[in-house]
């Protein structure tokens, strides 16, 4: 029984981590209709900025926003130099390849600058462990859980009630209509891209103390992100949240009660099953992937 | 041969067999009702117009008629066969061709290849047949060449056969779209706002083209440009807010009160 409760707790905390990773991915897909295969690289970038800050003795809680800002800036540069020029309008075909190549380039760059070895990223919560009625939760994970709940709910409120947020939703619903109704669609697009990438940076900064910083760290993250996002329905933020929770619980339960070695396959099996039942994913909208 | 409203109506009464018959079509997207109980009958051999203000549901009706979108309820018969649930490519193979408002042609291909693609449904040869030049392949081949020559002549695209569709002038692209449709030797031809964005000369040429290809075919046109409807159609259906208002000769329908109010009300482009 304890085991079950602990497993569920692990699953939820894990899901919170997935949520931070996937929110940016789903936002970018929803607004720009781009599956950003460079998301993992931006995640790694965020972790490395944290590593630099920490090694400069910047306190963790200060370093985190800095990391997000730096990644956001890089994201903006990418948007103006690459994404805007090549990817808007046309189908997924180009965007997949460009973002994939971009990701590879960034990882190679990280490898050249920082070398292949993993770097520790200290965090005040790094070593501590919370125990709530006998349930053990690593401090950093508890922290991630809190932050992701705060950030995501904040983001949701912002989308719903701020003008810009509503414009973003409008563009996601119907770009042409938004254009006619006088919304500056290109601007909304770059805003969304930067937001999405910044979210990846945040995820990197949050998870770095757990997974350490190494160049190829984004790979598995990207895979998790995509499974979660497809499960929830690409472009749907609530779907991503739902998907994260489900995937977190599913992984935890499967690892504890079934088989660890087959867990990596579980996510994809779930994804395919879901897509067969609900072709747009749990919360997705059809037009998002209609040709 | 140019149909006047008069001989169209006589034909309408005379004709017993119909080309398209839709009965009580309803179409809903989520909460929105696009079509609300539309029924219509298009007689074989006539040129039939569908008009109405923007967002009246013309295009939806059009898509339902030629099988691209499926009606929520109601029945569509084309050439005597029920196509209500039939998948689009099968509808196409049963002798129905159409043009589109926007994505009109195969842009990256030459005019000639556009015709080739248009011929798909009447080809029979396999890849193996292609390699060994099987009789089936040679038949397809001959038939295609003959048809292509004819269509190129009719649509006056002979000069442009080697050009990329995307580099052609707009009016020419429209003629190419019709040419592609003609390659499948359709009994019924659906034209979705064919004259939209054409200048006067292009429009006149286009009207001439339609008259040229009309004989032996049924043609259904959705169009804003009343001049086109008036000069081509024997009868026209007016759709307003997803409901059929009146079917009559084009110059008659505008005497209808509801039509007038609808057109004055709606800001037409």
């Amino acid at each position, binding site marked *: 029984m304890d085991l079950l409760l*602990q497993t569920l707790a692990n699953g939820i905390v894990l899901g919170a981590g997935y949520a931070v990773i996937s929110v940016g991915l789903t936002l970018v897909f929803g607004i720009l209709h781009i599956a950003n295969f460079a998301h993992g690289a931006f995640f790694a970038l965020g972790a490395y900025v944290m590593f630099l800050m920490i090694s400069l003795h910047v306190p963790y809680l200060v370093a985190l926003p800095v990391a997000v800002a730096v990644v956001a800036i890089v994201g903006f540069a990418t948007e103006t130099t690459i994404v805007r020029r090549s990817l808007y309008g046309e189908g997924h075909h180009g965007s997949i390849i460009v973002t994939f190549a971009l990701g590879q380039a960034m990882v190679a760059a990280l490898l050249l600058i920082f070398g*292949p070895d993993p770097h520790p990223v*200290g965090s005040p919560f*790094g070593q501590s*462990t919370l125990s709530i009625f006998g349930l*053990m939760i690593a401090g950093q994970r508890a922290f991630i859980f809190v932050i992701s709940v705060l950030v995501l709910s904040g983001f949701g409120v912002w989308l719903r009630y701020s003008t810009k947020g509503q414009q973003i939703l409008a563009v996601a619903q119907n770009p042409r209509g938004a254009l006619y109704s006088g919304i500056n669609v290109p601007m909304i697009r770059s805003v969304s891209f930067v937001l999405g990438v910044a979210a990846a940076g945040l995820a990197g900064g949050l998870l770095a103390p*757990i997974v*350490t910083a190494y160049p190829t760290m984004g790979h*598995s993250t990207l895979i998790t992100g995509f499974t979660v996002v497809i499960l929830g329905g690409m472009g749907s933020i609530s779907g991503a949240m739902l998907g994260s929770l489900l995937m977190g619980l599913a992984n935890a339960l499967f690892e*504890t009660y079934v088989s660890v070695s087959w867990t990596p396959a579980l996510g994809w099996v779930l994804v395919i099953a879901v897509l067969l039942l609900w072709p747009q994913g749990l919360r997705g909208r059809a037009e998002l992937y209609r040709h | 041969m140019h149909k006047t409203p008069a001989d169209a109506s006589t034909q309408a009464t005379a004709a017993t067999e119909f080309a398209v018959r839709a009965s009580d079509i309803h179409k809903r997207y989520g909460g929105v009702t696009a079509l609300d109980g539309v029924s219509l009958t298009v007689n074989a051999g006539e040129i039939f117009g569908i008009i109405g203000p923007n967002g009246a549901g013309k295009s939806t009706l059009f898509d339902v008629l030629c099988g691209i979108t499926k009606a929520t309820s109601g029945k569509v018969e084309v050439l005597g066969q029920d196509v209500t649930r039939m998948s689009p490519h099968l509808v196409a193979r049963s002798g129905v061709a159409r043009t589109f408002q926007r994505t009109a042609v195969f842009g990256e291909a030459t005019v000639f290849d556009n015709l080739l693609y248009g011929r798909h449904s009447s080809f029979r040869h396999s890849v193996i047949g292609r390699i060994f030049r099987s009789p089936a392949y040679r038949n397809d081949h001959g038939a295609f060449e003959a048809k292509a020559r004819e269509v190129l002549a009719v649509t006056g695209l002979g000069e442009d056969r080697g050009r990329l569709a995307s580099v052609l002038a707009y009016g020419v692209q429209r003629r190419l779209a019709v040419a592609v449709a003609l390659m499948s030797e359709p009994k019924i031809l659906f034209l979705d706002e064919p004259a939209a964005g054409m200048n006067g000369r292009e429009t006149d040429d286009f009207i001439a083209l339609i008259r040229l290809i009309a004989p032996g075919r049924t043609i259904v046109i959705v169009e804003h440009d009343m001049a086109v409807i008036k000069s081509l159609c024997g009868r026209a259906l007016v759709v307003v807010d997803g409901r059929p208002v009146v079917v009559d000769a084009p110059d008659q329908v505008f005497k209808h009160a509801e039509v007038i109010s609808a057109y004055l009300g709606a800001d037409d482009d």
Partner: protein
Amino acid sequence: MQLHFTRALGALMLGSCLIAPATAADPVKIGIAAPLSGGAATYGHDVKRGAELAADKINEKGGILGGRKIELIFEDDKGTPQGGVAAVQKLISVNRVNAITGGTNSSVVLAETSITRSRILHVNGAAQADAITDQGSPWLFQINNTVSANSRSFNAYITDVLKPKTVAYMGENTEFNKTVLELLRVSLKAKNIEIINVSTYDADTNDFTSIITKIKSLKPDLLYVSDAYPARAAQLWKQVRQLGGFPKEVTSPGVVTPGMMNPSEGAMDGVITGEIFVVSSPGEANKKFVDDYRKKWNVDPGKGNLVSYEAVILIAAAMDKAGTVSDYEKISKTIRDNKWASPRGELSFDAKGRATALNFYIQQVKGGKLVQIDQVKSN
């Protein structure tokens, strides 16, 4: 069969290898195929550093064969078999190297041997899979202990000294870890110690909380972790620590590196492991190696650095003694018939071309450093 076919290969390619006879002044080229890009690049680094130190040492002494210097040529094996084959092919046919070494990933080295067998001298530095030298091949040698050699020594220590009642195992799903697990099962069974849980995860796993939670719920006496990838192992131990740890904790022999201990930030303290080399081990040779290494790279050497160092030294010394750089029959015989000085003492090679370390050190992580706590005869 195998041999037969590669003879054909050798015969065919030799022609292209032995053009332009070398003169006394030409350097002796040693080709090093190692992962320099991608996820395994961290191992490639170890190889590079060890090998370069060795080359420096030899060339300081004026090279071999009356003044021929050692020249190292590195090629990226990308950590994949295809990459390894391409790298070795190129080193042999384009760079015209006189011997091949490097190699960290077993499946990569295994692929490489299909090219080098009966064609060129191949000294495998770090890769541990028994499969590499099992078929035995006249010109193929292995410096590092095989997995089984290491495990036999280490498991003996577990069963005879640590004497746990129950054991839980977790490790990555690789050939190396699979072998470790099999051997562990055998030795535990012999002393009828129960192995109560086995969890093998794949390369992309970075969250172990549920695995650890489950294992903790089974309250094992000893946790055996088998994971050679520094980044992941560091995360794993952190998470073990955060969930309270286990009475006895050991990790598979021959995998603990500074690159693993530093990022673990003390989480590995108390973990016991075994190794064929330890910085603090006695002996002039070892002290000298460690000092030289610190001087060149100002970090402590690890096993990965040591074996690639030894590989280069061995190749050079053997060529020198045999008085040839291309008569591999003769060089190989020389290697088999003699004992070779190394920081670990005198190495000798058995019929399959495997060197067996003289000593096997049981070590424990203390304050982020490996400290020797026991020493068993390697068998």
